[in-house]
């Protein structure tokens, strides 16, 4: 085919459509045709929902061994599809699932996945973030064979749906049950979620900059003065300083409050994806180059141990 194959993930419709949009921009740059594939029932929603001009072909990969996700099963299935179609580019959504199997798939094909891409440029080259978002790296594929990329959530704008016809073709890979070595259990929730940050209108969120658990009360005081829920970035919850249910980010809750006030949070992408939809973002951080300032509306560059108590006092005074 020598085209662009976009792999969609069932149940992850939004980021799958973003991957399709990324595939579309690659198609424009290269003049190659666009096709799509997913594991699952050809009647499932994921094949019907296409963005932009619909791809001519969609491959529905079906096999009893693929009923539940396993890396071994998915690698076998996509390896066979890619060897059959011989695409020049394969685009994946950058999800926990693709992070689990695509590097293995790439290795089997003698390739390296360009993971977590945020933009596609002339060439084509692929921009991805380095140093926790403080630096961009521009990558190029030089190998023979397919170039595999995965795209970051929210990095590509979903195209408007256009009329058109997509032919759905079934694809049945050959998989022996013994080739699947892992047995996945049913997903379960961690702790009972008693805090629903998703509905909180105001959130004060604290990160690594707080240094020690003993310092948390100054941020709690700010949240109380503002009437906000207290949230945190992952390292704070990893350390056990706040319960996991208060974590915002890709592994925690996704929030979009009226105000998100980030205290001592540098803004690694895993955090940003959980809060960048907030209406107003305020960041307090001592590092003027912290990536959080790239998404903030207002910023205070300074020592949080001085700024936060001053802010708490000012809010209390304003509310009197």
């Amino acid at each position, binding site marked *: 085919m020598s085209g662009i194959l976009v792999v969609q993930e069932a149940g992850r419709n939004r980021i799958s459509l973003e991957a399709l949009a990324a595939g579309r921009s690659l198609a424009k740059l290269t003049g190659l045709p666009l096709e799509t594939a997913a594991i699952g029932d050809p009647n499932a929603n994921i094949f019907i929902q296409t963005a932009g001009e619909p791809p001519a072909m969609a491959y529905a990969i079906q096999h009893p061994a693929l009923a539940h996700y396993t890396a071994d099963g998915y690698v076998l299935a996509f390896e066979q599809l890619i060897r059959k179609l011989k695409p020049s580019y394969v685009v994946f959504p950058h999800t926990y699932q693709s992070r689990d199997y695509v590097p293995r798939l790439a290795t089997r094909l003698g390739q*390296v996945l360009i993971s977590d891409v945020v933009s596609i440029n002339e060439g084509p080259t692929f921009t991805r973030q380095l140093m926790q978002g403080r630096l961009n790296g521009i990558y190029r594929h030089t190998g023979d064979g397919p170039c595999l990329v995965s795209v970051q959530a929210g990095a590509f704008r979903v195209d408007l749906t256009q009329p058109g016809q997509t032919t759905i073709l079934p694809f049945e890979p050959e998989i022996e049950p013994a080739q699947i070595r892992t047995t996945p259990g049913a997903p*379960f929730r961690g702790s009972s979620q008693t805090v629903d940050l998703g509905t909180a209108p105001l959130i004060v969120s604290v990160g690594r900059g707080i240094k020690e658990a003993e310092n948390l009360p100054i941020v709690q005081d700010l949240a109380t003065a503002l009437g906000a829920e207290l949230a945190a970035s992952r390292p704070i919850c990893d350390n056990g300083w706040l319960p996991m249910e208060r974590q915002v980010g890709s592994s925690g809750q996704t929030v979009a409050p009226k105000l998100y006030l980030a205290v001592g949070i540098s803004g690694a992408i895993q955090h940003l994806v959980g809060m960048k939809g907030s209406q107003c973002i305020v960041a307090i951080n001592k590092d003027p180059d912290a990536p959080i300032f790239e998404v903030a509306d207002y910023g205070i560059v300074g020592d949080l141990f001085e700024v936060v108590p001053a802010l708490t006092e000012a809010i209390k005074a304003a509310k009197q």
Partner: protein
Amino acid sequence: MKIIVAIKQVPERDAQFRIDAASKWIDETDLQFSLNESDAYALEEALQLKEKLNGEVIVLSAGPERIGTTIREALAKGADRAINIACEDLGTRDALGVAKLLAAAIQQEAPDLVLTGLQSEDLGFGQTGVILAELLGLPHATLILHVEKTETGLTVKRELEEGWFQEVTLPTPAVLTIQSGGNKLRYATLMGIKRAKLKEVRQLTAAEVDSALGTATAPVVILDRVSLPQKQKSTQILPGTPKEAAAALVEKLKFEVRVI
């Protein structure tokens, strides 16, 4: 249980990065380096498994001379011995090229379990463990918070997105990538630091490994150049003393964001 933990030394996260003259990489002259955080959790998991099951924990790292300090730190925390692959050109190898170096060293040891952090803080590819599994022909699981030995292999707790988890069972030998937060990290004790000096560090060079593999693998993915990210929003920085900045922010919150 014989466990190999693949660790990486990365720049300190608070470091100020300057792009080098060729725009190819960062200027490393004044940088401080430390153990990649999720690799620290991988090491912790390995040490706790050893405490429960006995066996041996071997740390493995590839990189320039400076990685010696990070390897000593891992030994001081309780790893039994180490393998150091001297490699000055780590940055010009792609993820597959680096994994091939590590895999060659792992194959000689035939461990029951290979652990590594889920992602490095510098390049953030998040692939080394998974690529290793494929190169070694072993099953793998990623984003693991807890490891339990069973009669036939392992049961692990895997993190899914948005607060969901699942258990996965798999046979050993296996490769796991470890997510942060599953355990509390230990510090090296004074005794540990003393003992570390006597522990074995096997020195390999990337050139030796390359020639044993037949060829140095040409990269299939190249980092062309690096640049500073462009701001997505124009942030209004509120200047002044902490008190002045706080007062300015309260004005904004009151009259523009309207939340006070």
